[in-house]
């Protein structure tokens, strides 16, 4: 047993145990405890020898995503316990649904972590498929018309997406098998990296196209993003937070691993331009769509499309500098977007609505919550001195230096998104308060914890972290 096994074992056992606990308080506490255990064991990965087995492995790249995933899963479980308490009081969830919800939450975290540490294309695919299944079930949890439609759309679109990714995986194996022989080694990341240079480049090309479309559907890249806004808007808000903060990252991680593989083969098409064009179209689409949103959760879902576009663009540019910016943006976006969903979840519960038109004057009626949202939106819009400003600035300068023409659509998309967010923020946060003004009983600790981290990252990045990101950025090629 190594530390990496404990990282997987905690959510696995937690999921089984939580499926059996009928008491609401105990289940919510248990969920937090299991997430804390997962976080603790993920942190221990830093101190033990990097694990490298036939099925699982830990390297500089995935360790940082594992810790980020475990951290956001932990803070979201804190948020979830107060969110769920309210949902049970208002009768939106029955005890059975609650048990199901907690078990699925841990199962979802398990699949994400497994996808990250899997040293095998097939195992990673099974994990991503599991993540699709668990989230589709949770999106449909409320059983309203909209929730069922969202879950159906999610299942159909992402089902097709992962099916195409599997075809790409099979093609990958087909390319590897003549060089490496049959067996597990021909599907392991660590083993493939060397021999990939001798593989047939045409099969690799075809495989990458399938993989980019397949996993790209789960990243929410345009034009494959149709499931994302519905899934974010209709499910429970903790799920929106982990969808945006974690699932999109994990899907992108899969794409990046394949990009790393292809980089070692000279004959293949460069994956960069494909990723740049998908990234830019997601950025532009996401920021334009921000303008006409009437539902607050749906609006921030489009903002996630926008930011995943920026990140994909940065990795598509490649090179140590752009990769560094991409990694930083991935982290900052996870923290900020989940913080925003924490705030939005409480707001929707206090106000009893998700309609932007019915929410106003939050800073007057609920100062702590309102200012939390203001901070989050200011951060996500990319204003200094918060972390996202830094990463967007880095993306922009590296683009300016290498492909100045691409900077035009990039800046356009960033400005459009900025305008839309500030416009909506004014009506929601300021002005005379409207609607219900009952007090917020929930703890705002997770929200502010994330915001403080984003603020610190914007002001000062610790040198060890910078060194770490630089190592990973070089690894990404």
């Amino acid at each position: 047993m190594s530390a990496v096994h404990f990282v997987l074992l905690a959510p696995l056992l937690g999921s089984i145990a939580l499926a059996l606990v009928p008491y609401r308080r105990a289940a919510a506490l248990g969920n937090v405890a299991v997430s804390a255990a997962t976080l603790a064991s993920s942190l221990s990965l830093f101190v033990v020898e990097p694990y490298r087995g036939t099925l699982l492995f830990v390297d500089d790249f995935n360790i940082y995503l594992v810790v980020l995933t475990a951290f956001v899963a932990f803070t979201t479980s804190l948020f979830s316990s107060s969110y769920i308490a309210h949902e049970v009081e208002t009768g939106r969830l029955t005890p059975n649904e609650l048990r199901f919800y907690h078990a699925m939450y841990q199962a979802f975290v398990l699949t994400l972590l497994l996808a990250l540490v899997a040293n095998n294309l097939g195992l990673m695919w099974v994990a991503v498929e599991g993540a699709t299944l668990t989230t589709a079930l949770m999106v449909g949890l409320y059983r309203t018309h909209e929730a069922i439609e969202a879950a159906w759309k999610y299942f159909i679109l992402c089902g097709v997406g992962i099916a195409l990714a599997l075809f790409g995986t099979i093609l990958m194996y087909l390319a590897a098998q003549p060089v490496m022989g049959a067996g597990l080694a021909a599907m392991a990341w660590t083993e493939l990296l060397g021999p990939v240079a001798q593989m047939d480049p045409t099969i690799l090309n075809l495989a990458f196209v399938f993989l980019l479309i397949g996993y790209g559907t789960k990243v929410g890249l345009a034009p494959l993003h149709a499931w994302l806004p519905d899934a974010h808007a209709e499910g429970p808000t903790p799920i929106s937070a982990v969808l945006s903060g974690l699932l999109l990252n994990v899907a992108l991680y899969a794409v990046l691993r394949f990009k790393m593989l292809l980089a070692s083969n000279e004959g293949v098409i460069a994956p960069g331009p494909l990723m740049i064009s998908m990234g830019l179209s997601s950025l532009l689409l996401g920021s334009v769509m921000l303008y006409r949103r009437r539902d607050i959760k749906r609006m921030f879902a489009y903002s996630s499309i926008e930011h995943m576009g920026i990140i994909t663009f940065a990795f598509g540019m490649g090179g140590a500098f752009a990769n560094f910016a991409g990694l930083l943006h991935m982290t900052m976006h996870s923290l900020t977007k989940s913080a925003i969903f924490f705030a939005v979840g409480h707001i929707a519960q206090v106000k009893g609505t998700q309609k932007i038109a019915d929410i106003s004057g939050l800073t007057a009626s609920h100062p702590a919550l309102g200012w939390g949202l203001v901070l989050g939106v200011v951060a996500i819009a990319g204003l200094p001195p918060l972390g996202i400003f830094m990463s967007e600035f880095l993306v922009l300068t590296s683009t300016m230096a290498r492909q100045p023409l691409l900077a035009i659509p990039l800046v356009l998309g960033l400005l459009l998104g900025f305008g839309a967010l500030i416009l909506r923020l004014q009506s929601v946060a300021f002005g005379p308060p409207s609607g219900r003004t009952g007090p917020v009983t929930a703890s705002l600790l997770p929200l502010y914890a994330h915001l403080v981290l984003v603020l610190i990252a914007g002001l000062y990045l610790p040198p060890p972290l910078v060194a770490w990101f630089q190592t990973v950025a070089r690894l990404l090629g």
Partner: protein
Amino acid sequence: MTLSESTIYDVTHLLDGTVLLLSFALLYQRRLFGVLSAFALQSLVLALAAAWQAFANDAPHLYITAGIALFFKTIIIPLALHRIVVNLGIHREVETALGIGATLIVGASLAALAIVLVLPVTAASVALTRENLALSLSVVLLGLLMMITRRNAVTQVVGFMSLENGLLLAAVGVRGMPFVVEISAAFAVMVAFIIFGVFFFQIRERFDTLDVSYVERFRGERH
């Protein structure tokens, strides 16, 4: 008993080709029960293909994949869908978004596309694998086509599972691929959850029809 290369080649081709043929059969059904029987038959042939690969390539783990295809997809799922259709009183006609003739023409061109795409790309691979891959990509594309052109939720699920049959056909045909069993099990779990656990009963609770276009009226922003 040892088999000659040409016997292996011929039988594999026969089974793979039959799976593709049944994909076309799925497209021209006008009645829901016809769709279910065609799907059951396709899964049966897939089970045979998997078992044949297990036998011919001496890969016993593929018998498990064959078993899953046989028990789960040939028997249990079609029966369950049959029950759902009967008990919930769903329309027994297939509702199409694109006429049957047009669908078949598009389907034939998709199959041609798959062959044109795969054969040149995999020129260096072993012959058997190439053709198997071309046939299974055709099955995948036809499954996609079915999901797009059929409105009813039952036919969409059948389309998804037929797409999945194509993927499994590709996976069992590539020699020595690991994780095939896990992959087929993961698909089975996904479909089982979707079908039995949640969607059908919930959709039924709210709507009188499983016609997805009806569900889609609720699309978009809340007003």
